[in-house]
């Protein structure tokens, strides 16, 4: 057994892992090999080309609700609004991925943080004060982070699955609290939450749309695009006319968080999370203060949840009520992380995108959506146990496990080993 454990550790370290990855890539199936190959191809491109391609891609994503590509564009519901929801859920998934994917803490009550962020914003800007949005936003993030610390301090000492139920309870407590406390509007909710400030002149009803200039959207006749002047987005007015500016704002935050996420993940902190997730006792023995790092993951995740909640509160409708934060939403968040692949940054983005987008795209099957979603969640783990965009580390670990099984003679068919 000792030999095997040794091997496992060696395999996880870089040299052996690279060797095993080649073996794993040939042994892997379908999308996984495709992803690996894509990544290798990407790494071989010159630096300049990579930057140019990235910038191009980012611009494309920003313009998506204006390009309104056929097939992708939702028919029955405003596409800009859908894209706002997509970006918001991707942001939530990236935040939750820190907690679940990196630190390995199963949080089933993430909607609680989302609600705290939204309600803090609502209370500060509309209900009990009239702060401007960009002052309330950091305060909301701070309050949510603090609530994460407050919840994490007693509960993170509890291990594993107990945490799941405690967080589930937390999510429900927050929902019940905002339902029953008159101070935060109870069942009536909070309305007239101010939007982010405009750039350029404010709109002057009934004719002036405001903003510096108007950006037209495209309309498609088959595959032939033309300008749709009836659907212009004033730059940059956060009003009731267009949801696109809200999408841009959330997307900007998402990109910012993705950068930060990458920095943190590749730092000492990220490695400490990984060690804690894989084996808490071993990590503790190696001198990793596991509790402190778990608490950090929890607080960071909470802060991002609060950020997206705050953005949600100040979005187009400017209205929140307790029904906006059902416990089911938590489950949806967790599903988004696992659909993409826990521990994988881009997986979280993909998962959040799919979970938010697909139900809106297939609105005509409205009644069947949840049923299909449930079935999809049952099928996915069978065919993609690591999610759609698995973390590279997970793949390496799996390849290493395979190698060990082979060395122990436990695999069914003998396989070529490097």
């Amino acid at each position: 057994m000792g030999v095997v454990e040794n091997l496992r550790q060696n395999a996880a370290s870089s040299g052996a892992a690279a060797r095993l990855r080649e073996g794993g890539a040939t042994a892997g199936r379908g999308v996984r090999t495709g992803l690996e190959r894509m990544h290798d191809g990407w790494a071989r491109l010159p630096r300049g080309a990579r930057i140019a391609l990235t910038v191009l891609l980012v611009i494309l994503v920003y313009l998506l609700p204006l390009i309104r590509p056929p097939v992708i564009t939702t028919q029955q519901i405003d596409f800009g609004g859908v894209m706002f929801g997509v970006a918001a859920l991707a942001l939530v998934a990236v935040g939750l991925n820190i907690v679940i994917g990196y630190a390995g803490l199963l949080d089933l009550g993430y909607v609680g943080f989302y609600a705290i962020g939204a309600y803090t914003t609502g209370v500060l800007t509309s209900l009990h004060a009239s702060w401007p949005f960009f002052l309330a936003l950091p305060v909301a993030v701070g309050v949510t982070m603090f609530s994460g610390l407050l919840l994490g301090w007693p509960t993170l000492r509890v291990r594993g699955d107990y945490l799941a139920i405690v967080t589930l309870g937390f999510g429900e407590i927050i929902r019940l609290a905002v339902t029953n406390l008159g101070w935060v509007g109870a069942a009536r909710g909070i309305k007239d939450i101010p939007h982010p400030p405009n750039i350029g002149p404010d709109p002057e009803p009934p004719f002036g749309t405001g903003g510096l200039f108007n950006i037209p959207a495209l309309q498609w006749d088959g595959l032939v695009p033309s300008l749709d002047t009836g659907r212009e987005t004033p730059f940059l007015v956060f009003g009731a006319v267009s949801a696109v500016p809200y999408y841009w704002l959330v997307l900007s935050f998402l990109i910012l968080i993705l950068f930060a996420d990458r920095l943190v993940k590749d730092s000492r902190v990220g490695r400490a999370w990984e060690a804690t997730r894989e084996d808490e006792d071993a990590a503790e023995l190696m001198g990793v203060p596991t509790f402190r790092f778990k608490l950090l993951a929890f607080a960071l995740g909470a802060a991002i949840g609060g950020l997206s909640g705050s953005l949600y509160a100040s979005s187009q409708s400017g209205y929140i009520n307790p029904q906006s934060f059902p416990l089911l939403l938590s489950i949806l968040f967790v599903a988004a992380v696992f659909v993409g692949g826990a521990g994988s940054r881009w997986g979280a983005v993909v998962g959040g995108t799919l979970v938010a987008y697909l139900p809106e795209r297939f609105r005509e099957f409205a009644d069947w959506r949840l049923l299909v979603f449930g079935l999809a969640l049952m099928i996915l783990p069978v065919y993609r146990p690591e999610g759609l965009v698995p973390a590279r580390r997970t793949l390496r670990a799996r390849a290493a496990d395979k190698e060990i099984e082979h060395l122990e003679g436990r695999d069914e068919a003998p396989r070529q080993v490097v």
Partner: protein
Amino acid sequence: MNFSFLFNNIIELSITGLALGAIYALVALGYTMVYGVLQLINFAHSEVFMYGTFAVAWVFVLLHGTEPATQTLGGTAGLLVVAILAAMAMSALIALLLERVAYRPLLKRKAPRLMALISAIGASFALSELMGLRDRVAGWFGLREALGPYVANARDIYPNPVTIQPQTVFTIGGYGVKDVDLLVIVASLLMMLALDQFVRRTRFGRGIRAVAQDPESAALMGVNATRVIRGTFVLGGIMAGAAAAFYMLKVGSTRQNTGFIFGVKAFTAAVLGGIGNLRGALVGGLVLGVTENYGAAIFGSQWKDVVAFVLLVLILLVRPTGILGESLGKARA
């Protein structure tokens, strides 16, 4: 804060709390046993319970008809026995299906443990939605007319046509104890006692404990793990079916989303008592039921669930593995 209400009604609150807690405990057994054997939160167990409640209502529709009636417990005893058996059968069947469709394929592929939770969440959604869309599904097969009263108003509250009028059996301290509560408490305790003895004394029970302790060694000793896991699901289903019948006795109606919150509470009860521990499920359920009732009396019923979860956090702070904290595998024979 209404302490005088609590003290004036303490006996009533305790007894109805115990009855509610006994139902929680029966459902909690399903969570705790599956967790003990597979270390898996069987998130879809709530739907196993929900299907049981529908089985009860359907039996009453089938054997009594749809017109509303009020009966005493004694007057409807025959129907009730059939309904309980039907609920147990239905729940056991759903649990079996769940094991076959949602878990076994994953176990076979050695998928990460948390992925099984996702599968369970998916199964929970699918089962609940299937119940909510049962009129449409019946429509596919052209059975909508034939099944009329069973699939009507699929997304609305579905009542048991027979309302059971509780009768006072005896009086303690000025409160007349109702026969329904008494039946629920006594029957639940008997069922749990039977299950406890089953796991402790029979060959199959020894298999369950062995797999819970160490699946690999158990397999080496000739325990058929697949059979044990299947049996565990069925046992949990039977308990959930009984719980469903008692729930219908007390509440009288159900809905396709009844399972979710009730399941969360039952799981809380399991964790409260110490997950993986059969007697813990009982203790956790009863403590939860009674505390909820007291909490509702003091703070108002809208804070009932908050009291339950705060209690959970407090207990886990003091005893991180629940009140009894012993695992299924460590239970002595």
